[in-house]
Every structure is written in structure tokens, then in C-alpha cells.
């Protein structure tokens, strides 16, 4: 096995959609103790350190916003990353507790023809990822995680179990995946580096700390097999997002939505599919659920395009009460065409722009407001304009540019030409024989009028200018 571990160190903060300009801290409760485990830059600049107690944090920054850690939101992000990782190889596995995602890349390595090419691919694919991340590559889950947590990066992959020891021995020992108590005791015994711990006799470690410690060292070095639970991308995409504050305008929804759509895009890329229809629902403080079904002209997995379409739809929505929760759901997926991946998006920029604009028009105005014209072969004028079925130019006398949506009875106009008899449709049960004329009203406006056979009433059907 060769595992790529993706570790997301700032996920407790990044999984929530938070303003950057005010100090925010994420609080974790263990027993009676509530500690701040993650801080944004604004809070850090004020001198607060992660690990501080809640009271200490409030003492230092009275206006700090403290939010409970949201394990569900973190898991959703990890799953999105896992879905994307699926495009790199299988199996994929997740550890929510340590904020890690692993993917087995030995086969991709062969496919890409070596590490530099695969690394380049990974870097390009994750360039826009809005999450801080560290990578580690090693033949065991534990060693790749250790390297990722320590920040080893993509430059020096550890290819064989025999190389693990040399790769980790110089790191400080607190990166070892042990309980804090165990690490403190080791540190208290004067040990500082991982190499020094590995040099200790295993049975002595087992007697001092229990069998778990030497066993996990053996796993780390690849001497004992590891177990993992394989992650499979779910066939239906469903995500829930709770807003840290309430959104009172649809504008305020765009920021969390951008995040949701980014995660959605990871899922789509991982499964190598695109989406044409999806559903957004949001729940407000009054527990009312609003549902928007979004359709696109062509399948896509570009989060910016999805956001653009959603924004138009949202502009039409007025919120009765502040929104608290968002749900994103997609059940049907379409095959993705390579043309829509950002990397290859050069040739059809114009066509792309056209589709995007049209989608925005449809999103805001409604599908029936955006029409294209085509002629149909029916001779009856009111049926000869409807959309779809383009027809080769049939021969007929000149026709007016405007057709009235509803025929209007008028007084007899001044007729300017001979009649054109239009008669068909009798097989459908209505007998429609009409004599059409070019005519003129008193102002000089050119009209298209008709009289039904056997009737004296003139009717206005079109205008020429």
C-alpha cells in the first residue's frame, strides 16, 4: 500500500462559514472543561493561543465570538474531500477524530508515470480548495498521518516500509499518535525525538504504558497490518449546513452557498460526473422550509457556474424570516465531459459564456420567458410560429412581422391586395377557412386581416411594420 494522507488542521474553523474580520474561537467541551481549540487570525492577532480556557479567552477578548465545535459539519467536509480523493485511487478512508482522509495511490502512481506527474496533478486539482491542508505519503496509514500532521508535504514521499523509520525519527515525539498522558511521560523521561522512542525495547514500553503503545508503533512502521473502513461516495448527494449566524437576506446566503457548492464540486469530480438538476432548501427561524429546484442548460461541475445560477434564483426570493439551515441535494448525475474542467477551458469560452448567460436568464425569468423561435409546417398562422421543429422554408406569400397573440375583431379596413385563402386543419375537427388580406387602417398602419368563410366580421391578426 501507499497512502496519501490529507490532513485538515484548521477544519473546526473552516467547516463553519465565518466572517474573517471579527475574532472567532471554536470551543470544545471535554468533561467540565471548555477549551478554545481553534482561532481565526483576528483572534490570534490579539494574543490568544489555542488551548486556552473559555474564561481566559473572554478575559483577553471580551467581544470574541465563541462557537461550539460542529463535528457534523467537519464530517461533511471530510466526506467531500474523500469523494474527490476517489478520483486519485481506491480505497479511501476517513478518520473524523483526527481530521484525516487517506487514499491509496500506488496504482495512480503507475498511471501517471511517476511521482512528479501525480504530484503536479494533485496540486492542480486542489489549488482552489478553500481548506488548509497538509499532506503525508507513506506505506502505512499511521506513518502518512504522522507525516501529514507534522507538515511533511508532497515533496518527500516514503515509498517503502523500510524507509519509514528514517523518515520519522528526527521529528519531535509529540507527533506520535499517543494519548497526551503517554507523551507527557515520555517527554518527562528526557526523550525528545521519535527516533529515541523507537529505540526503546518494545516489551518495556508495553509494560509501562500497556500493549497498545508498542502495537501502534509496529503499525506505524508497517510491521503489523492495519485495518480501515473503506469510504464509498454515496450515490445521492445530500448535505445540510447550519449557519453560524442567521442570514436575514438572500445576499447573506451566498457566502455559505459558495462553500457548499465547492464541496459539491469535489464530490462531482471524485465521481467523475456532472449535475444538471439539484435542489436547494432552506429553513428559517419559523421552521418554514423553502425549496428551489435548479435546472441548468447543460451538466456542469463548475462551482462558480452553479453559484451564478443560484444567485439569480435567490434574487427572486424574499425571506420572511432569517434563515438558519441550508440543504443541498442532488439525486441524478450526468456523465462529465472533460471540456468543462477548468484546466481545459480555453476554446469554448464564448459558447460557455452564452450558456451561462442563458441559464441566468432562465433562472431569473423562468423557462417559459426565454424563448427561441422556429417555424412549424402548419399553414394556420397561429400554429406556424411555435418553438421546436425547425422547418425548411415553405413557399408562401409574404407574412407580417408581428402576430397578435389574440385575434381582434375590427371594423372593415381598407384592403390593399387580393385575398390569400388559408384553409386547413379540417381533419382535426375544426373547419378553418380564412381569407387574409393586406390592409391599412386610417393612420396608414399596415395590417394583416382576415374574414372567416361565410362570416362578415373582419379580424386583425398581424402587423407588417
Amino acid at each position, binding site marked *: 500500500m501507499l497512502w496519501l494522507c490529507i490532513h485538515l488542521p484548521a477544519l473546526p474553523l473552516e467547516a463553519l462559514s465565518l466572517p474573517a474580520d471579527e475574532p472567532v474561537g471554536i470551543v470544545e467541551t471535554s468533561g467540565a472543561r471548555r477549551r478554545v481549540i481553534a482561532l481565526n487570525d483576528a483572534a490570534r492577532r490579539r494574543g490568544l493561543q489555542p488551548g486556552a480556557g473559555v474564561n481566559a479567552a473572554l478575559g483577553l477578548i471580551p467581544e470574541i465570538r465563541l462557537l461550539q465545535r460542529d463535528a457534523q459539519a467537519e464530517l461533511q467536509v471530510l466526506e467531500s474531500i474523500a469523494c474527490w480523493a476517489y478520483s486519485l485511487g481506491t480505497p479511501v478512508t476517513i478518520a473524523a477524530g483526527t481530521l484525516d482522509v487517506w487514499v491509496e495511490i500506488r496504482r495512480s502512481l503507475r498511471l501517471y508515470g511517476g511521482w512528479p506527474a501525480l504530484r503536479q496533478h494533485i496540486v492542480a486539482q486542489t489549488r482552489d480548495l478553500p481548506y488548509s491542508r497538509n499532506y503525508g505519503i507513506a506505506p502505512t496509514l499511521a506513518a502518512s498521518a504522522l507525516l501529514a500532521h507534522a507538515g511533511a508535504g508532497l515533496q518527500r514521499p516514503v515509498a517503502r516500509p523500510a524507509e519509514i523509520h528514517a523518515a520519522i525519527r528526527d521529528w519531535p515525539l509529540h507527533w506520535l499518535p499517543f494519548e497526551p498522558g503517554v507523551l507527557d511521560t515520555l517527554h518527562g523521561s528526557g526523550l525528545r525525538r521519535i527516533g529515541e522512542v523507537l529505540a526503546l525495547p518494545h516489551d518495556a514500553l508495553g509494560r509501562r504504558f500497556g500493549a497498545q503503545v508498542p502495537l501502534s508503533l509496529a503499525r506505524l512502521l508497517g510491521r503489523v497490518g492495519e485495518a480501515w473502513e473503506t469510504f464509498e461516495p454515496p450515490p445521492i448527494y445530500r448535505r445540510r449546513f447550519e449557519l453560524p449566524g442567521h442570514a436575514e437576506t438572500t445576499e447573506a446566503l451566498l457566502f455559505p452557498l459558495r462553500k457548499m457548492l465547492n464541496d459539491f464540486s469535489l464530490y462531482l469530480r471524485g465521481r467523475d460526473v456532472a449535475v444538471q438538476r439539484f435542489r436547494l432548501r432552506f429553513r428559517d427561524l419559523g421552521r418554514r422550509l423553502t425549496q428551489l429546484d435548479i435546472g441548468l442548460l447543460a451538466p456542469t461541475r463548475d462551482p462558480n457556474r452553479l453559484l451564478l445560477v443560484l444567485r439569480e434564483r435567490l434574487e427572486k426570493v424574499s425571506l420572511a424570516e432569517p434563515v438558519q439551515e441550508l440543504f443541498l441535494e442532488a439525486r441524478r448525475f450526468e456523465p462529465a465531459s472533460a471540456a468543462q474542467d477548468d484546466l481545459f477551458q480555453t476554446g469554448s469560452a464564448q459558447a460557455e459564456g452564452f450558456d451561462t448567460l442563458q441559464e441566468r436568464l432562465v433562472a431569473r*425569468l*423562468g423557462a417559459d420567458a426565454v424563448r427561441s423561435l422556429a*417555424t412549424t409546417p402548419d399553414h394556420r398562422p397561429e400554429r406556424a*410560429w411555435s418553438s421546436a421543429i425547425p422547418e425548411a422554408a415553405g413557399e408562401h406569400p409574404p407574412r407580417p412581422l408581428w402576430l397578435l397573440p389574440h385575434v381582434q375583431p375590427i371594423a372593415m379596413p381598407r384592403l390593399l391586395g387580393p385575398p390569400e385563402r388559408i384553409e386547413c386543419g379540417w381533419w382535426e375537427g375544426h373547419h378553418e377557412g380564412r381569407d387574409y388580406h393586406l390592409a391599412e387602417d386610417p393612420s396608414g398602419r399596415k395590417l394583416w386581416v382576415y374574414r372567416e368563410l361565410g362570416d362578415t366580421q373582419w379580424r386583425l391578426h398581424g402587423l407588417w*411594420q
Partner: protein
Amino acid sequence: MVRGAVDLNNIAGVWRGLGRTRPDSESTGIPALDQALLGGWPVGALSQMVSHEAGLGFSLVVPLLARLTRAGRHVALIAPPYIPYAPALRDAGVDLRKLLWIAPKDRVDALWAAEQMLRSGLYGAVALWSPALEAPIERRLQLAAETGRSVGIVAHAGAYGAHSIAAVRLQLKPAAAALSVEIVRCRGARPGQRVECPFPLRRAA
């Protein structure tokens, strides 16, 4: 040219005399009108058509739609007062696949669509039917047309708005065997000219 001298052609508002043609214009397809408008519909600007009857003036726009669509450009009709009749448009040479008809629910949506489409640069011409535009709205659309290098045509039925920044303003009236077009304003041209546009339109080759 003398070094340091100012090129008068670069100064907006300098009277350059009559009879020149504007470089950035699209032919109307009607020679007499092209001549009066110094080349045709200005590109990247708004033109205004006013008449007392809804829909009058479509026949002036159709030749432009035909030429642009056959050159592969897209064109749009926004909030027309009647159904643009496909067989007639096709006969006039319009490639219907390139024509989009926007039928918005209300005026706000119509103006929004007009601005989006003018600004996008994806539409060679956008014709909007609307009651007279307030000055700020007109400025927005003018700016959008400028950005997208599009021909913006606004048609409204009724009296003139007192003020308009449109580069071209036309007053339309039906006339015997013709459509009478008075050029109320055209930058660089003498105002008050009248052109009789023949009717019916010749069938496109």
C-alpha cells in the same frame, strides 16, 4: 501634424462637419436610412425609436437581425408587444436559431435582462420594447451597450421622454406605402431629416 498640436478628432464635442460616416455602426439595410444615420445603427450605444403605435418600427430592425444572425451573431428581442412571427422573420433572412425572444413578467425583469444581454458582449443586437426610460435606467443600459459593444435599440410607444441620452432618436409614423422616419437626433448629423422607408420589405435573397 505639428508636434504638440492637439488632434481635434480626439476631443469629444468638437463639431466635425456633416456627411461623415461613423466607423462603429451596423447598416440598417436601408440605404437612405444608413446615409441619414451616418452609417447605420451605432454600435456600443442606445438608439431610440418612438411612435404612437406599439410595435411600429420592427421592420427597421429586422434587416439588422438578418445580417447579424447570418454572420453567426446572436440577437435578442425583449418584451415585444406582439408575437414576432417566425415565418416572416425567416423569409426576411433571420436565422431563427440565433434569435432569442425574452418575454418577462414585468418591466423590472425586462430591464434586467436587457442590461445583462447588452453587457455580456454575446449579443450583436438587443431590441427592447418598453415605456419611456428614466434617465438613470437609460444611462445603465447605455453603459451596458458600451461595455458589450452591442447595438441597443429601445422602442417605445407614446410621446417622447423629455430627455434622452440615446445616440440616435427616431420618430416613426405610418405613411402610404412606407414607414416615415424622422431623425430627431443623430450625433454628428443634421437633425430633422425625414426618410421614407419602403414597404413591404423586399424578400431576402
